[in-house]
């Protein structure tokens, strides 16, 4: 059973339906006691980092996520949810993240070569950096997934599982022990996205 963490950020309808499409039961909840019964957790998120980090903190779900991660429960962050796994973010200010992964979230503006539009919106190809990634076990080099973002995680350590090229190599997927993350939206990435969600739903350590 997969618990999708609801902390008031974004629409979780597609995420829930896409898990059901791959035959994995999922529920949406903001209640830590209920979420604790899940054997895997999804940390979703759209919008601004500062806002989301505050909401997570105010609801007390930040502690819950950290405790569950420390206990070894598989956790996957999606889009802004992936960014929250890192140490901090420089999105319109400076905010602390969960610190489960090493690295910082920084703006594309100023980092990309001229002529590239921000946000990075659309289908872009994955370059696998970690050939042993469980999340990407069924994904071929160069397959396409759907991105929408203006900030990206930089300074990743060995957690970096895949990148995508948009003027520079952008962190696309991360994986370290029981911690997983996708900058793109697997629930909006057609068959490739569904393969990734299926891998997360069934990975064994």
């Amino acid at each position, binding site marked *: 059973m997969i618990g999708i963490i609801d902390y008031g950020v974004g*629409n979780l*309808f*597609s995420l829930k*339906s*896409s898990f*059901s*499409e791959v035959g994995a039961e999922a529920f949406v909840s903001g209640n830590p006691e209920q979420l604790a019964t899940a054997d895997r957790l999804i940390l979703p998120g*759209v*919008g*601004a980092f500062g806002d989301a980090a505050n909401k997570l903190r105010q609801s007390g779900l930040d502690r819950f996520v950290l405790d569950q991660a420390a206990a070894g429960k598989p956790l996957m962050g999606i889009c802004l949810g992936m960014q929250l796994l890192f140490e901090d973010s420089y999105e319109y200010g400076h905010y602390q993240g969960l610190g489960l992964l090493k690295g910082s979230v920084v703006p594309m503006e100023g980092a990309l070569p001229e002529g590239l*539009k*921000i*946000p*990075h*919106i*659309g*289908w*872009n*190809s994955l370059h696998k950096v970690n050939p042993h990634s469980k999340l990407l076990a069924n994904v071929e080099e160069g397959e*396409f997934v*759907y991105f*929408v973002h203006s900030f990206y995680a930089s300074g990743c350590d060995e957690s970096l599982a895949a990148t995508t*090229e*948009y003027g520079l190599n952008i962190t696309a997927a991360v994986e370290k022990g029981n911690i997983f993350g996708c900058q793109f*939206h697997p*629930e*909006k*990435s*057609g068959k490739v*996205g*569904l393969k990734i969600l299926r891998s997360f739903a069934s990975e064994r350590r």
Partner: protein
Amino acid sequence: MITKRIIPCLDVKDGRVVKGVNFQGLQDVSSPVDLGKYYSDNGADELVFYDITASNEGRRLFADILTQVASTIFIPLTVGGGINSLDDFERVLNCGADKVSVNSGAIRNPDLVGAAAKKYGDQCVVLSADIKRVNGEFRVFAKGGREDTGMEAISWIKRCVDNGAGEVVVNSIDTDGVKQGLDLEMLEAVCNAVQVPVIASGGAGSAEDFVKLFSRLPQVDAGLAASVFHFGQVNITELKKQLRQNNIPVRL
């Protein structure tokens, strides 16, 4: 490398897909859920659903259809038509839409784009503009292309992007339904004015028209069309193969 997107647009009335030629003479095509699924399985990068229903009952029917679509199709979904308030945004986002397209609603209430971008993020707000040449300038038209607003189109688009529109759909009334190619002159003017993704619409009649669009204007991010796809004149997978042969990056 980021790819060019091909986006079929489904106009929905009373639960069925329709497409007008020059915005008149609607013709029934198919079921929105079946057609959406077909496109998603056959290379569409994104889907746009336009609600052209006026009645409350039609609107409820549209919501049901949208919910069905969103639970079976896992590519980005944009919804437009009758979006006049934040409540309308909420209504379609709750049915599973990822982006919301505003047109006449933004003309009536210019604060709508800014308010929606603040609440749901820029990536959620798509400005759709119906544009026609009048006395040598690009004019914004409202109400499905029937009413001249008197506003100059490029400054209108710039203003909406400054307020937070994350993407712009440029629909040329001059070329729409004529199938003689997209309006490159109009599209170039918009691309030169804004930094957000630009989606070209109106006038595609063949795969060559899309090849020409992306070859001549590499700044354009996506091509949107309806009847050429619905009636099978252009098959999306074949179109993408042809684009790739012409060194235009696509997802295949």
